[in-house]
């Protein structure tokens, strides 16, 4: 699996006796758009938390471009190029939309820590352009001076994505990017994700099956913390075990 950009072997996360994730052997190639789906409680968000460094695994290893990153802390993973957009839009509510992205761009530019006690970040012109680019990508440039906390839910989620993008990631983890969005916003986000998928590897957790089936290169199905199946959308759609796992056997529409 030498061309896998992100890979896990035997990855697991136990809380006491409860195994949120176990035995996950996962790999994704550079440039892929991989969906991670599964019924509620399957452990999808836990999996993303392990990948992003939000949580530490109890078993297994994680590799990024061949290097072991299992115990690398969250901020350093971002530096390496793994960025995450959160399930509940996690932004700086009191800052403007632009400043939200600027902060992420600043992190990309200055690194984990800078003891620059005297000069302001205004002097770093790359930061502004990086932030601007991210906003353009998610089509929020028009709202750049709005206070982030005042945005609509859908716009906040897109801002969260923009913030992740401003760190110039190689892999983008999107946790339920269209949850709670109107139909129109879902379409917009669909186009956005397709666009992003052309420039970077994208992993997406979602319940919206129409969206998933439409845009994914491949799908990994989690069930009860383990991988149940993996394959192209067509293969997954036809997989009876996957249908069983989702009670009632729908794989179309939103589960």
């Amino acid at each position: 699996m030498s061309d896998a950009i992100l890979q896990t072997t035997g990855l697991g996360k136990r809380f006491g006796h409860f195994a949120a994730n176990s035995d996950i052997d996962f790999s994704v190639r550079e440039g892929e758009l991989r969906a991670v789906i599964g019924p509620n409680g399957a452990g999808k968000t836990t999996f993303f938390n392990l990948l992003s460094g939000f949580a530490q695994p109890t078993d297994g290893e994680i590799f990024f471009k061949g290097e072991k990153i299992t115990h690398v802390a969250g901020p350093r993973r971002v530096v390496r190029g793994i960025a995450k957009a959160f399930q509940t839009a996690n932004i700086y509510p009191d800052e403007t939309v632009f400043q939200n992205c600027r902060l992420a761009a600043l992190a990309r530019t200055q690194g984990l820590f800078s003891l620059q006690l005297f000069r302001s970040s205004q002097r770093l012109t790359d930061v502004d352009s990086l932030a601007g680019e991210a906003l353009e990508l998610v089509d929020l440039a028009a709202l750049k001076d709005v206070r982030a906390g005042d945005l609509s839910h859908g716009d906040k989620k897109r801002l969260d994505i923009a913030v992740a993008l401003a760190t110039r990631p190689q892999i983008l983890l999107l946790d339920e990017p269209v949850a709670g969005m109107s139909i129109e916003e879902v379409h917009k986000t669909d186009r956005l994700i397709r666009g992003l998928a052309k420039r970077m590897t994208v992993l997406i957790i979602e319940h919206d099956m129409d969206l998933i089936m439409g845009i994914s290169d491949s799908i990994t199905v989690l069930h009860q913390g383990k991988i149940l199946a993996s394959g192209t959308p067509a293969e997954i759609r036809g997989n009876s075990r996957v249908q069983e796992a989702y009670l009632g056997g729908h794989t179309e529409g939103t589960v």
Partner: protein
Amino acid sequence: MKDARFYGLTALGLVLFPFLIHPIGGYPGLATQILIVAIGSIGFNLLLGYAGLLSYGQSMFYGVGGYMALLTISKFFPDHPNFWLAILLGVGFVTLMAVAIGALVVRLYGIYFALLTLAFAQMFFFVVFKWRDLTQGDDGLQGISAPPLSLGFTSIDLTGTFPSLDLGPFGNLSDVHYWYAFVALIMLLVLAFTRTLIRSQFGEVLGAIRENEERSTFVGFDPRRYKLAAFTIAGALTGLSGALRGLYETSIAPDALTVGTSGDFVIYTVIGGVKTLFGPLVGTGLIMYMQNVISAKTDAWRLIEGLLFVAVIVFLPGGILGSFKRKRARTILAAAVAAGPPDAPSRAAAREAAP
């Protein structure tokens, strides 16, 4: 506000301060004391207002700074007492303390952080209290005059006074010692430094971490290092405050390291205005004025202080100066009081990880 205007107005204010308080019962010595302590409050504000960390242990930096400065003169270098050396050793030692302790405390949040800083402060208190050979224990160090301030071409005895000049209701210029001028200059530098820091790249990221630590972590900042830096700078400022206090008062006692002293910094800063530049100075000035002037009139002054403190937290979380801010007064306190349940990362992790 433009830099030049800022420095000009601040300098003017500092020059006028000892005289302006004269008609209301103040005196230049009080002005000096206020400025000295306020340096420590500004340090505390850096932690609470800008880094969002409530430390109940600043007294350890204050007290140790004072002891080190005085011991430098009386014990470490008794034959060559040097003012700058005393300050240097005081602040330097405290800075090392802050780095060591900071590395441990910044792993914690909320009440646990506050309690750990308190635990360390208590440890230092008891060490100072019991180590009689070094610190004279309960009696403290006394009667250690500050050597003259050497400026290369000349040296100034800070206890000297300015020439006489009657200023009517504002007192006399000769009431003012050179000490005040020296401390005022240091205060100007401290204010300038703090102002610059807040607007700097470091300050910007620190504020981002305070506003949303989780997000900051996952855009690639290392919150722990930022908090450690803030803790160290705050400690150094508080140590400077303590060193100056020791040298000014020519004495120091273990009460400089008590929980009460730590609490004083909290009170001064919150009342004056958390997350404002001058808030700590205003708060320190107001309360110390009350302590020194009102206390002569009534025994209830500390009760008034307590009531004022509670009133500020409940009704005016931005403090006295915070309510004048033109921008939305989203100080850490206002946010804490207005916001919902706390959202430290591990709680959120527990939530996100739940199926």
